[in-house]
Protein backbone atom coordinates (compact mmCIF):
# COMPACT_ATOMS: atom_id res chain seq x y z
CA UNK A 1 0.00 0.00 0.00
CA UNK A 2 2.79 2.39 0.89
CA UNK A 3 4.20 2.13 -2.61
CA UNK A 4 1.07 3.49 -4.24
CA UNK A 5 1.15 7.19 -5.06
CA UNK A 6 -0.88 9.10 -2.48
CA UNK A 7 -3.27 11.98 -3.04
CA UNK A 8 -3.56 15.10 -0.88
CA UNK A 9 -5.60 13.34 1.82
CA UNK A 10 -3.22 10.38 1.98
CA UNK A 11 -5.57 8.08 0.12
CA UNK A 12 -4.46 6.01 -2.88
CA UNK A 13 -5.05 7.95 -6.12
CA UNK A 14 -6.09 4.93 -8.16
CA UNK A 15 -9.19 3.06 -7.04
CA UNK A 16 -9.36 -0.73 -7.21
CA UNK A 17 -11.96 -1.09 -10.03
CA UNK A 18 -9.92 1.24 -12.20
CA UNK A 19 -6.86 -0.94 -11.59
CA UNK A 20 -8.82 -3.99 -12.70
CA UNK A 21 -9.75 -2.26 -15.92
CA UNK A 22 -6.13 -1.26 -16.50
CA UNK A 23 -4.98 -4.84 -15.90
CA UNK A 24 -7.59 -6.15 -18.28
CA UNK A 25 -6.43 -3.71 -20.97
CA UNK A 26 -2.84 -4.84 -20.46
CA UNK A 27 -3.93 -8.48 -20.77
CA UNK A 28 -5.80 -7.71 -24.00
CA UNK A 29 -2.73 -5.95 -25.40
CA UNK A 30 -0.58 -8.95 -24.54
CA UNK A 31 -3.04 -11.34 -26.23
CA UNK A 32 -3.23 -9.14 -29.33
CA UNK A 33 0.58 -9.08 -29.59
CA UNK A 34 0.83 -12.85 -29.26
CA UNK A 35 -2.04 -13.37 -31.71
CA UNK A 36 0.04 -11.68 -34.43
CA UNK A 37 2.38 -14.65 -34.72
CA UNK A 38 -0.53 -17.09 -34.82
CA UNK A 39 -2.39 -15.25 -37.59
CA UNK A 40 0.73 -14.79 -39.70
CA UNK A 41 1.78 -18.43 -39.30
CA UNK A 42 -1.72 -19.64 -40.18
CA UNK A 43 -1.86 -17.39 -43.24
CA UNK A 44 1.56 -18.32 -44.62
CA UNK A 45 1.07 -22.02 -43.91
CA UNK A 46 -2.48 -21.97 -45.30
CA UNK A 47 -1.18 -20.76 -48.66
CA UNK A 48 2.10 -22.67 -48.68
CA UNK A 49 1.12 -26.15 -47.44
CA UNK A 50 -1.28 -27.05 -50.31
CA UNK A 51 1.50 -26.19 -52.75
CA UNK A 52 4.11 -28.25 -50.88
CA UNK A 53 1.67 -31.16 -50.69
CA UNK A 54 1.32 -31.08 -54.48
CA UNK A 55 4.95 -30.69 -55.51
CA UNK A 56 6.57 -32.42 -52.56
CA UNK A 57 8.64 -30.57 -50.00
CA UNK A 58 11.84 -32.41 -50.93
CA UNK A 59 11.57 -31.53 -54.63
CA UNK A 60 10.87 -27.91 -53.68
CA UNK A 61 13.83 -27.56 -51.33
CA UNK A 62 16.40 -29.48 -53.39
CA UNK A 63 15.24 -28.42 -56.87
CA UNK A 64 17.91 -26.32 -58.53
CA UNK A 65 15.75 -24.67 -61.22
CA UNK A 66 13.41 -21.73 -60.61
CA UNK A 67 11.31 -21.04 -63.71
CA UNK A 68 7.90 -19.83 -62.51
CA UNK A 69 6.80 -19.18 -66.12
CA UNK A 70 7.36 -22.90 -66.89
CA UNK A 71 5.87 -24.13 -63.60
CA UNK A 72 9.26 -25.30 -62.25
CA UNK A 73 9.81 -24.32 -58.63
CA UNK A 74 13.09 -25.30 -56.96
CA UNK A 75 14.53 -23.04 -54.28
CA UNK A 76 17.89 -24.70 -53.62
CA UNK A 77 19.80 -21.83 -55.32
CA UNK A 78 18.03 -19.35 -53.02
CA UNK A 79 18.73 -21.42 -49.90
CA UNK A 80 22.38 -21.59 -50.94
CA UNK A 81 22.31 -17.88 -51.75
CA UNK A 82 20.90 -16.88 -48.35
CA UNK A 83 23.37 -19.19 -46.60
CA UNK A 84 26.35 -17.82 -48.57
CA UNK A 85 25.49 -14.16 -48.02
CA UNK A 86 24.82 -14.77 -44.31
CA UNK A 87 28.04 -16.74 -43.82
CA UNK A 88 30.01 -13.99 -45.55
CA UNK A 89 28.34 -11.31 -43.40
CA UNK A 90 29.15 -13.19 -40.19
CA UNK A 91 32.72 -13.92 -41.28
CA UNK A 92 33.25 -10.18 -41.74
CA UNK A 93 30.99 -8.87 -38.98
CA UNK A 94 31.58 -11.25 -36.03
CA UNK A 95 35.28 -10.47 -35.39
CA UNK A 96 34.62 -6.74 -35.72
CA UNK A 97 31.44 -6.77 -33.64
CA UNK A 98 32.67 -8.97 -30.81
CA UNK A 99 36.04 -7.17 -30.63
CA UNK A 100 34.12 -3.89 -30.31
CA UNK A 101 31.94 -5.45 -27.61
CA UNK A 102 34.98 -6.64 -25.64
CA UNK A 103 36.67 -3.25 -25.97
CA UNK A 104 33.58 -1.35 -24.84
CA UNK A 105 32.93 -3.69 -21.90
CA UNK A 106 36.46 -3.87 -20.50
CA UNK A 107 39.02 -1.55 -21.98
CA UNK A 108 37.41 1.63 -23.29
CA UNK A 109 37.75 4.78 -21.15
CA UNK A 110 34.29 6.02 -20.29
CA UNK A 111 34.67 9.19 -22.35
CA UNK A 112 35.34 7.15 -25.48
CA UNK A 113 32.93 4.28 -24.79
CA UNK A 114 29.76 6.39 -24.79
CA UNK A 115 30.20 7.97 -28.25
CA UNK A 116 31.33 4.64 -29.79
CA UNK A 117 28.38 2.81 -28.28
CA UNK A 118 25.96 5.48 -29.49
CA UNK A 119 27.40 5.51 -33.00
CA UNK A 120 27.03 1.73 -33.29
CA UNK A 121 23.46 1.92 -31.99
CA UNK A 122 22.69 4.62 -34.55
CA UNK A 123 23.52 2.10 -37.28
CA UNK A 124 20.40 0.20 -36.24
CA UNK A 125 18.28 3.25 -37.04
CA UNK A 126 19.39 3.61 -40.67
CA UNK A 127 16.68 2.29 -43.03
CA UNK A 128 17.82 -0.80 -44.92
CA UNK A 129 17.11 0.78 -48.30
CA UNK A 130 19.77 3.38 -47.47
CA UNK A 131 22.30 0.60 -46.79
CA UNK A 132 21.28 -0.92 -50.11
CA UNK A 133 21.70 2.32 -51.99
CA UNK A 134 25.12 2.85 -50.46
CA UNK A 135 26.05 -0.71 -51.41
CA UNK A 136 24.77 -0.27 -54.97
CA UNK A 137 26.60 3.00 -55.62
CA UNK A 138 29.80 2.44 -53.60
CA UNK A 139 30.49 -1.20 -52.67
CA UNK A 140 29.34 -2.88 -55.90
CA UNK A 141 31.57 -0.69 -58.12
CA UNK A 142 34.41 -1.24 -55.63
CA UNK A 143 34.06 -5.02 -55.79
CA UNK A 144 33.73 -4.74 -59.56
CA UNK A 145 36.98 -2.76 -59.89
CA UNK A 146 38.93 -5.10 -57.64
CA UNK A 147 37.60 -8.30 -59.21
CA UNK A 148 36.89 -7.11 -62.78
CA UNK A 149 33.50 -8.86 -62.58
CA UNK A 150 30.07 -7.23 -62.39
CA UNK A 151 30.43 -6.59 -58.66
CA UNK A 152 26.93 -7.81 -57.78
CA UNK A 153 27.98 -10.65 -55.53
CA UNK A 154 27.89 -12.65 -52.33
CA UNK A 155 30.76 -10.44 -51.15
CA UNK A 156 28.89 -7.14 -51.73
CA UNK A 157 25.83 -8.54 -49.90
CA UNK A 158 28.04 -9.82 -47.08
CA UNK A 159 29.75 -6.46 -46.68
CA UNK A 160 26.46 -4.56 -46.43
CA UNK A 161 25.01 -7.11 -43.99
CA UNK A 162 28.19 -7.16 -41.87
CA UNK A 163 27.62 -3.49 -41.05
CA UNK A 164 23.89 -4.03 -40.53
CA UNK A 165 24.43 -6.78 -37.90
CA UNK A 166 26.99 -4.76 -35.90
CA UNK A 167 24.44 -3.19 -33.51
CA UNK A 168 23.11 -6.65 -32.59
CA UNK A 169 26.59 -8.12 -32.09
CA UNK A 170 27.98 -5.16 -30.14
CA UNK A 171 25.09 -4.52 -27.76
CA UNK A 172 24.33 -8.18 -26.99
CA UNK A 173 28.05 -9.02 -26.80
CA UNK A 174 28.74 -6.17 -24.42
CA UNK A 175 25.78 -7.18 -22.23
CA UNK A 176 27.07 -10.76 -22.12
CA UNK A 177 30.51 -9.69 -20.91
CA UNK A 178 29.16 -7.07 -18.50
CA UNK A 179 26.91 -9.69 -16.89
CA UNK A 180 29.86 -11.87 -15.79
CA UNK A 181 29.84 -11.65 -11.94
CA UNK A 182 32.42 -9.03 -10.80
CA UNK A 183 34.02 -11.57 -8.37
CA UNK A 184 35.38 -13.53 -11.36
CA UNK A 185 37.15 -10.49 -12.72
CA UNK A 186 38.38 -9.38 -9.30
CA UNK A 187 39.56 -12.90 -8.42
CA UNK A 188 41.52 -13.20 -11.62
CA UNK A 189 43.15 -9.79 -11.25
CA UNK A 190 43.94 -10.55 -7.57
CA UNK A 191 45.78 -13.69 -8.69
CA UNK A 192 48.08 -11.49 -10.71
CA UNK A 193 46.58 -12.02 -14.18
CA UNK A 194 46.80 -9.06 -16.56
CA UNK A 195 43.64 -7.45 -17.94
CA UNK A 196 44.16 -9.25 -21.25
CA UNK A 197 44.65 -12.63 -19.51
CA UNK A 198 41.55 -11.96 -17.43
CA UNK A 199 39.58 -11.16 -20.58
CA UNK A 200 40.65 -14.17 -22.61
CA UNK A 201 40.93 -16.68 -19.75
CA UNK A 202 37.97 -15.76 -17.58
CA UNK A 203 35.49 -13.24 -19.00
CA UNK A 204 35.11 -14.48 -22.59
CA UNK A 205 34.79 -18.19 -21.63
CA UNK A 206 32.21 -17.32 -18.95
CA UNK A 207 30.26 -15.07 -21.31
CA UNK A 208 30.50 -17.55 -24.18
CA UNK A 209 26.83 -18.65 -24.22
CA UNK A 210 25.78 -15.00 -24.37
CA UNK A 211 28.27 -14.29 -27.14
CA UNK A 212 27.04 -17.30 -29.11
CA UNK A 213 23.47 -16.04 -28.68
CA UNK A 214 24.55 -12.64 -30.05
CA UNK A 215 26.05 -14.28 -33.14
CA UNK A 216 22.98 -16.46 -33.70
CA UNK A 217 20.61 -13.48 -33.45
CA UNK A 218 22.84 -11.54 -35.84
CA UNK A 219 22.55 -14.51 -38.19
CA UNK A 220 18.76 -14.29 -37.99
CA UNK A 221 18.92 -10.60 -38.81
CA UNK A 222 21.15 -11.31 -41.81
CA UNK A 223 18.97 -14.15 -43.17
CA UNK A 224 15.85 -12.01 -42.89
CA UNK A 225 17.20 -8.80 -44.42
CA UNK A 226 15.60 -8.07 -47.79
CA UNK A 227 15.83 -4.63 -49.32
CA UNK A 228 19.56 -3.97 -48.90
CA UNK A 229 20.37 -7.44 -50.20
CA UNK A 230 18.17 -7.21 -53.31
CA UNK A 231 20.01 -4.09 -54.38
CA UNK A 232 23.54 -5.53 -54.26
CA UNK A 233 23.46 -9.29 -54.87
CA UNK A 234 22.28 -9.27 -58.50
CA UNK A 235 19.43 -11.75 -57.93
CA UNK A 236 20.51 -14.51 -60.30
CA UNK A 237 18.82 -17.82 -59.44
CA UNK A 238 21.90 -19.99 -59.93
CA UNK A 239 24.13 -21.73 -57.43
CA UNK A 240 26.96 -19.36 -56.47
CA UNK A 241 30.39 -20.70 -57.42
CA UNK A 242 32.52 -18.12 -55.62
CA UNK A 243 32.38 -15.07 -53.38
CA UNK A 244 32.10 -12.97 -56.54
CA UNK A 245 29.07 -14.79 -58.00
CA UNK A 246 25.74 -13.00 -58.06
CA UNK A 247 23.10 -14.76 -55.93
CA UNK A 248 19.37 -14.78 -55.26
CA UNK A 249 18.22 -14.97 -51.64
CA UNK A 250 15.00 -16.39 -50.15
CA UNK A 251 13.84 -12.94 -49.08
CA UNK A 252 14.77 -11.43 -52.43
CA UNK A 253 12.75 -14.09 -54.23
CA UNK A 254 9.62 -13.21 -52.26
CA UNK A 255 10.06 -9.44 -52.45
CA UNK A 256 10.85 -9.24 -56.18
CA UNK A 257 8.14 -11.59 -57.41
CA UNK A 258 5.24 -11.19 -54.96
CA UNK A 259 3.81 -8.17 -56.78
CA UNK A 260 3.21 -10.15 -59.96
CA UNK A 261 2.73 -13.71 -58.81
CA UNK A 262 -0.59 -15.50 -59.13
CA UNK A 263 -1.77 -19.07 -58.69
CA UNK A 264 0.99 -21.69 -58.21
CA UNK A 265 3.71 -19.06 -58.39
CA UNK A 266 2.16 -17.11 -55.53
CA UNK A 267 1.76 -20.26 -53.44
CA UNK A 268 5.38 -21.17 -54.16
CA UNK A 269 6.40 -17.79 -52.73
CA UNK A 270 4.39 -18.50 -49.58
CA UNK A 271 6.15 -21.86 -49.37
CA UNK A 272 9.47 -19.97 -49.71
CA UNK A 273 8.25 -17.84 -46.80
CA UNK A 274 7.64 -21.01 -44.75
CA UNK A 275 11.21 -22.20 -45.38
CA UNK A 276 12.52 -18.79 -44.32
CA UNK A 277 10.25 -18.85 -41.28
CA UNK A 278 11.60 -22.29 -40.30
CA UNK A 279 15.17 -20.98 -40.65
CA UNK A 280 14.55 -17.97 -38.40
CA UNK A 281 12.60 -19.99 -35.80
CA UNK A 282 15.46 -22.50 -35.69
CA UNK A 283 17.98 -19.73 -35.16
CA UNK A 284 15.92 -18.11 -32.40
CA UNK A 285 15.58 -21.49 -30.73
CA UNK A 286 19.37 -21.95 -30.87
CA UNK A 287 19.95 -18.50 -29.41
CA UNK A 288 17.59 -19.16 -26.52
CA UNK A 289 19.02 -22.59 -25.85
CA UNK A 290 22.46 -21.02 -25.77
CA UNK A 291 21.59 -18.28 -23.29
CA UNK A 292 19.65 -20.73 -21.13
CA UNK A 293 22.82 -22.81 -20.94
CA UNK A 294 24.50 -19.83 -19.34
CA UNK A 295 21.90 -19.46 -16.61
CA UNK A 296 22.18 -23.08 -15.55
CA UNK A 297 25.89 -22.83 -14.89
Amino acid at each position, binding site marked *: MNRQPLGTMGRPVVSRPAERVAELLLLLSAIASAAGIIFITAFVAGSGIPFLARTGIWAFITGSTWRPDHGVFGIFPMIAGSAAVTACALALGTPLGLATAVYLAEFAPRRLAAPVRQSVQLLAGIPSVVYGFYGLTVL*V*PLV*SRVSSGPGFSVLAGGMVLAVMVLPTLVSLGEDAIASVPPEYREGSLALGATRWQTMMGVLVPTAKPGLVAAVVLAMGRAVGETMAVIMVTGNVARLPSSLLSPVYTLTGNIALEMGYAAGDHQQALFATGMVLFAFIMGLNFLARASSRGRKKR
Partner: protein
Amino acid sequence: MLCTSRFRLLLVVIAALVLAGCGKAAPPGGHLGTITVAGSTSVQPLSEVLSQRFMELNPGVRINVQGGGSTAGVKAARERAADIGQSSRELKPEEKGLHETVIARDAIAIIVHPSNPVRELTSAQVQAIFAGRLASWKDVGGPDRAIVLVNREAGSGTLGVFVELVMGKDQLSDRAIVQNSTGAVRTTVSTTRDAVGYVSLAGLTPEVKAVAIDGVSPTIDNVLAGKYVVSRPFIYLTPQAPEGLVKAYIDFVLSAEGQAMVRKEGLVPVR
Protein backbone atom coordinates in the same frame (compact mmCIF):
# COMPACT_ATOMS: atom_id res chain seq x y z
CA MET B 1 -13.06 1.29 -49.51
CA LEU B 2 -14.55 1.95 -52.88
CA CYS B 3 -17.99 2.22 -51.32
CA THR B 4 -16.85 4.96 -48.99
CA SER B 5 -15.03 6.82 -51.75
CA ARG B 6 -18.13 6.59 -53.96
CA PHE B 7 -20.25 7.73 -51.05
CA ARG B 8 -17.89 10.59 -50.34
CA LEU B 9 -17.98 11.53 -53.99
CA LEU B 10 -21.77 11.53 -53.92
CA LEU B 11 -21.82 13.73 -50.80
CA VAL B 12 -19.37 16.09 -52.40
CA VAL B 13 -21.42 16.27 -55.57
CA ILE B 14 -24.57 16.98 -53.57
CA ALA B 15 -22.74 19.61 -51.55
CA ALA B 16 -21.49 21.18 -54.76
CA LEU B 17 -25.00 21.25 -56.21
CA VAL B 18 -26.38 22.82 -53.04
CA LEU B 19 -23.62 25.40 -53.01
CA ALA B 20 -24.19 26.15 -56.67
CA GLY B 21 -27.90 26.51 -55.94
CA CYS B 22 -27.10 29.07 -53.28
CA GLY B 23 -25.49 31.14 -55.97
CA LYS B 24 -21.97 30.67 -54.63
CA ALA B 25 -19.18 30.24 -57.17
CA ALA B 26 -17.85 26.72 -57.58
CA PRO B 27 -14.07 26.42 -57.07
CA PRO B 28 -12.01 27.22 -60.17
CA GLY B 29 -12.08 24.23 -62.48
CA GLY B 30 -15.24 23.14 -60.79
CA HIS B 31 -14.46 19.48 -60.06
CA LEU B 32 -14.54 17.88 -56.63
CA GLY B 33 -13.70 14.41 -55.33
CA THR B 34 -11.00 11.77 -55.07
CA ILE B 35 -9.48 9.48 -57.72
CA THR B 36 -7.08 6.58 -57.13
CA VAL B 37 -4.67 5.68 -59.93
CA ALA B 38 -2.61 2.48 -59.51
CA GLY B 39 -0.38 0.14 -61.50
CA SER B 40 2.73 0.31 -63.70
CA THR B 41 5.73 1.98 -62.09
CA SER B 42 6.75 3.17 -65.60
CA VAL B 43 3.54 5.20 -65.96
CA GLN B 44 3.58 6.34 -62.31
CA PRO B 45 5.96 9.33 -62.66
CA LEU B 46 3.91 10.66 -65.61
CA SER B 47 0.63 10.20 -63.70
CA GLU B 48 2.14 12.05 -60.76
CA VAL B 49 3.00 15.18 -62.77
CA LEU B 50 -0.31 15.13 -64.65
CA SER B 51 -2.38 14.67 -61.50
CA GLN B 52 -0.40 17.37 -59.71
CA ARG B 53 -1.33 19.86 -62.41
CA PHE B 54 -4.95 18.68 -62.49
CA MET B 55 -5.17 19.20 -58.72
CA GLU B 56 -3.73 22.70 -59.10
CA LEU B 57 -6.44 23.51 -61.64
CA ASN B 58 -9.14 21.87 -59.49
CA PRO B 59 -8.38 22.52 -55.82
CA GLY B 60 -11.37 20.38 -54.79
CA VAL B 61 -9.86 17.23 -56.33
CA ARG B 62 -7.51 14.75 -54.67
CA ILE B 63 -5.72 12.18 -56.87
CA ASN B 64 -3.73 9.35 -55.28
CA VAL B 65 -1.14 7.79 -57.59
CA GLN B 66 0.21 4.37 -56.58
CA GLY B 67 2.63 1.84 -58.10
CA GLY B 68 2.45 -1.95 -58.10
CA GLY B 69 3.23 -2.90 -61.71
CA SER B 70 1.15 -3.29 -64.87
CA THR B 71 -0.32 -6.64 -63.81
CA ALA B 72 -1.43 -5.11 -60.53
CA GLY B 73 -2.87 -2.15 -62.49
CA VAL B 74 -5.06 -4.47 -64.58
CA LYS B 75 -6.17 -6.28 -61.44
CA ALA B 76 -6.92 -3.01 -59.63
CA ALA B 77 -9.10 -1.72 -62.50
CA ARG B 78 -10.93 -5.04 -62.81
CA GLU B 79 -11.58 -5.40 -59.09
CA ARG B 80 -12.30 -1.67 -58.83
CA ALA B 81 -9.69 -1.26 -56.14
CA ALA B 82 -8.58 1.80 -58.11
CA ASP B 83 -10.61 4.19 -60.29
CA ILE B 84 -7.91 4.03 -62.99
CA GLY B 85 -5.43 1.20 -63.57
CA GLN B 86 -2.18 2.03 -65.38
CA SER B 87 -0.47 -0.39 -67.74
CA SER B 88 2.76 0.06 -69.66
CA ARG B 89 2.08 -2.83 -72.06
CA GLU B 90 -0.73 -4.05 -74.31
CA LEU B 91 -3.22 -6.18 -72.39
CA LYS B 92 -2.99 -9.95 -72.78
CA PRO B 93 -6.01 -11.68 -74.37
CA GLU B 94 -7.17 -12.96 -70.96
CA GLU B 95 -6.95 -9.43 -69.52
CA LYS B 96 -9.19 -7.81 -72.14
CA GLY B 97 -12.64 -6.41 -71.35
CA LEU B 98 -11.53 -3.17 -69.71
CA HIS B 99 -11.89 0.24 -71.32
CA GLU B 100 -8.45 1.31 -72.56
CA THR B 101 -7.28 4.88 -73.15
CA VAL B 102 -3.76 5.26 -74.57
CA ILE B 103 -2.38 8.43 -72.93
CA ALA B 104 1.20 8.35 -74.26
CA ARG B 105 3.72 6.16 -75.99
CA ASP B 106 7.08 5.11 -74.63
CA ALA B 107 10.12 3.53 -76.23
CA ILE B 108 12.51 1.12 -74.61
CA ALA B 109 16.08 2.31 -74.85
CA ILE B 110 19.05 -0.06 -74.65
CA ILE B 111 21.57 1.59 -72.32
CA VAL B 112 25.28 1.09 -71.68
CA HIS B 113 27.95 2.77 -69.54
CA PRO B 114 28.92 6.22 -70.92
CA SER B 115 32.53 5.05 -71.40
CA ASN B 116 31.45 2.16 -73.64
CA PRO B 117 32.64 2.83 -77.23
CA VAL B 118 29.74 0.86 -78.73
CA ARG B 119 27.22 3.34 -80.23
CA GLU B 120 25.01 1.15 -82.31
CA LEU B 121 23.68 -2.41 -82.31
CA THR B 122 21.45 -4.33 -84.68
CA SER B 123 18.27 -5.79 -83.22
CA ALA B 124 19.70 -9.27 -83.91
CA GLN B 125 22.77 -8.36 -81.83
CA VAL B 126 20.65 -7.10 -78.93
CA GLN B 127 18.69 -10.35 -79.05
CA ALA B 128 21.87 -12.46 -79.10
CA ILE B 129 23.41 -10.43 -76.26
CA PHE B 130 20.39 -10.85 -73.98
CA ALA B 131 20.09 -14.54 -74.88
CA GLY B 132 23.70 -14.96 -73.75
CA ARG B 133 25.02 -16.02 -77.17
CA LEU B 134 27.23 -12.94 -77.54
CA ALA B 135 29.22 -12.77 -74.31
CA SER B 136 31.94 -10.21 -75.05
CA TRP B 137 31.83 -6.57 -76.16
CA LYS B 138 34.48 -7.59 -78.69
CA ASP B 139 31.77 -9.43 -80.66
CA VAL B 140 29.96 -6.13 -81.34
CA GLY B 141 32.93 -3.86 -81.94
CA GLY B 142 33.87 -3.00 -78.37
CA PRO B 143 36.72 -3.92 -76.03
CA ASP B 144 37.51 -7.55 -75.14
CA ARG B 145 35.51 -7.63 -71.91
CA ALA B 146 32.61 -9.79 -70.75
CA ILE B 147 29.15 -8.23 -71.14
CA VAL B 148 27.21 -7.83 -67.88
CA LEU B 149 23.48 -8.25 -68.55
CA VAL B 150 20.99 -6.32 -66.43
CA ASN B 151 17.43 -7.57 -66.58
CA ARG B 152 14.10 -6.62 -64.97
CA GLU B 153 12.21 -8.91 -62.59
CA ALA B 154 9.66 -11.43 -63.87
CA GLY B 155 6.26 -9.73 -64.30
CA SER B 156 7.62 -6.25 -65.02
CA GLY B 157 5.83 -4.47 -67.89
CA THR B 158 9.17 -3.25 -69.28
CA LEU B 159 10.52 -6.81 -69.31
CA GLY B 160 7.32 -8.04 -70.98
CA VAL B 161 7.62 -5.50 -73.80
CA PHE B 162 11.35 -6.13 -74.20
CA VAL B 163 10.79 -9.88 -74.53
CA GLU B 164 7.90 -9.41 -76.95
CA LEU B 165 9.55 -6.82 -79.23
CA VAL B 166 13.21 -7.82 -79.04
CA MET B 167 13.56 -11.41 -77.85
CA GLY B 168 10.65 -12.98 -79.69
CA LYS B 169 10.77 -16.74 -78.99
CA ASP B 170 14.38 -16.52 -77.74
CA GLN B 171 15.02 -17.27 -74.05
CA LEU B 172 16.59 -14.57 -71.87
CA SER B 173 19.93 -15.66 -70.41
CA ASP B 174 19.64 -16.94 -66.83
CA ARG B 175 22.94 -15.26 -65.96
CA ALA B 176 21.50 -11.75 -66.10
CA ILE B 177 21.51 -9.61 -62.97
CA VAL B 178 17.97 -8.69 -61.94
CA GLN B 179 17.03 -5.21 -60.70
CA ASN B 180 13.49 -4.30 -59.76
CA SER B 181 12.99 -0.76 -61.06
CA THR B 182 13.95 1.57 -63.89
CA GLY B 183 16.05 3.60 -61.45
CA ALA B 184 17.93 0.55 -60.15
CA VAL B 185 18.71 -0.62 -63.71
CA ARG B 186 19.98 2.86 -64.60
CA THR B 187 22.15 3.12 -61.46
CA THR B 188 23.54 -0.37 -62.11
CA VAL B 189 24.45 0.44 -65.71
CA SER B 190 25.88 3.85 -64.77
CA THR B 191 28.20 2.29 -62.18
CA THR B 192 29.15 -0.92 -64.03
CA ARG B 193 31.57 -0.42 -66.92
CA ASP B 194 30.53 -3.47 -68.95
CA ALA B 195 26.80 -3.49 -68.24
CA VAL B 196 23.94 -3.34 -70.70
CA GLY B 197 20.30 -2.86 -69.67
CA TYR B 198 17.05 -1.41 -70.92
CA VAL B 199 14.84 1.39 -69.57
CA SER B 200 11.88 3.54 -70.51
CA LEU B 201 12.59 6.60 -72.67
CA ALA B 202 11.56 8.77 -69.71
CA GLY B 203 14.19 7.04 -67.59
CA LEU B 204 17.10 8.16 -69.79
CA THR B 205 19.60 10.49 -68.11
CA PRO B 206 23.13 11.59 -69.02
CA GLU B 207 24.46 9.03 -66.49
CA VAL B 208 23.97 6.34 -69.14
CA LYS B 209 24.31 6.12 -72.91
CA ALA B 210 21.45 4.94 -75.14
CA VAL B 211 22.62 2.99 -78.18
CA ALA B 212 20.99 3.26 -81.60
CA ILE B 213 19.14 0.15 -82.78
CA ASP B 214 19.54 -0.67 -86.50
CA GLY B 215 20.83 2.88 -86.94
CA VAL B 216 17.89 4.63 -85.24
CA SER B 217 18.36 6.49 -81.94
CA PRO B 218 15.64 6.24 -79.30
CA THR B 219 14.18 9.76 -79.45
CA ILE B 220 10.63 11.12 -79.30
CA ASP B 221 10.79 12.19 -82.94
CA ASN B 222 11.98 8.81 -84.15
CA VAL B 223 9.13 7.09 -82.28
CA LEU B 224 6.59 9.58 -83.69
CA ALA B 225 7.94 8.95 -87.20
CA GLY B 226 7.56 5.21 -86.63
CA LYS B 227 11.29 4.60 -87.15
CA TYR B 228 12.16 3.43 -83.63
CA VAL B 229 10.03 0.33 -83.24
CA VAL B 230 10.80 -0.87 -79.71
CA SER B 231 7.89 1.16 -78.37
CA ARG B 232 4.85 0.56 -76.23
CA PRO B 233 1.66 2.34 -75.15
CA PHE B 234 0.97 3.81 -71.72
CA ILE B 235 -2.65 2.91 -71.03
CA TYR B 236 -5.22 4.13 -68.51
CA LEU B 237 -7.70 1.33 -67.73
CA THR B 238 -11.23 1.86 -66.49
CA PRO B 239 -13.96 -0.74 -65.94
CA GLN B 240 -16.25 1.07 -68.43
CA ALA B 241 -15.97 4.18 -70.58
CA PRO B 242 -14.80 6.88 -68.14
CA GLU B 243 -17.41 9.25 -66.75
CA GLY B 244 -17.67 12.10 -64.26
CA LEU B 245 -14.49 13.14 -62.51
CA VAL B 246 -12.45 10.28 -64.01
CA LYS B 247 -13.49 11.43 -67.50
CA ALA B 248 -12.60 15.03 -66.64
CA TYR B 249 -9.12 13.92 -65.55
CA ILE B 250 -8.51 11.70 -68.61
CA ASP B 251 -9.78 14.53 -70.88
CA PHE B 252 -7.21 16.80 -69.25
CA VAL B 253 -4.47 14.20 -69.86
CA LEU B 254 -5.40 14.08 -73.55
CA SER B 255 -5.72 17.89 -73.83
CA ALA B 256 -3.04 20.05 -75.48
CA GLU B 257 -1.66 20.99 -72.05
CA GLY B 258 -1.59 17.38 -70.82
CA GLN B 259 0.12 16.12 -73.96
CA ALA B 260 2.68 18.93 -73.77
CA MET B 261 3.52 17.66 -70.28
CA VAL B 262 3.87 14.12 -71.68
CA ARG B 263 6.51 15.43 -74.07
CA LYS B 264 8.25 17.38 -71.32
CA GLU B 265 8.59 14.13 -69.35
CA GLY B 266 10.53 12.66 -72.27
CA LEU B 267 7.64 10.55 -73.56
CA VAL B 268 5.81 10.46 -76.87
CA PRO B 269 2.48 12.35 -77.07
CA VAL B 270 -0.48 10.62 -78.74
CA ARG B 271 -2.40 13.72 -79.90
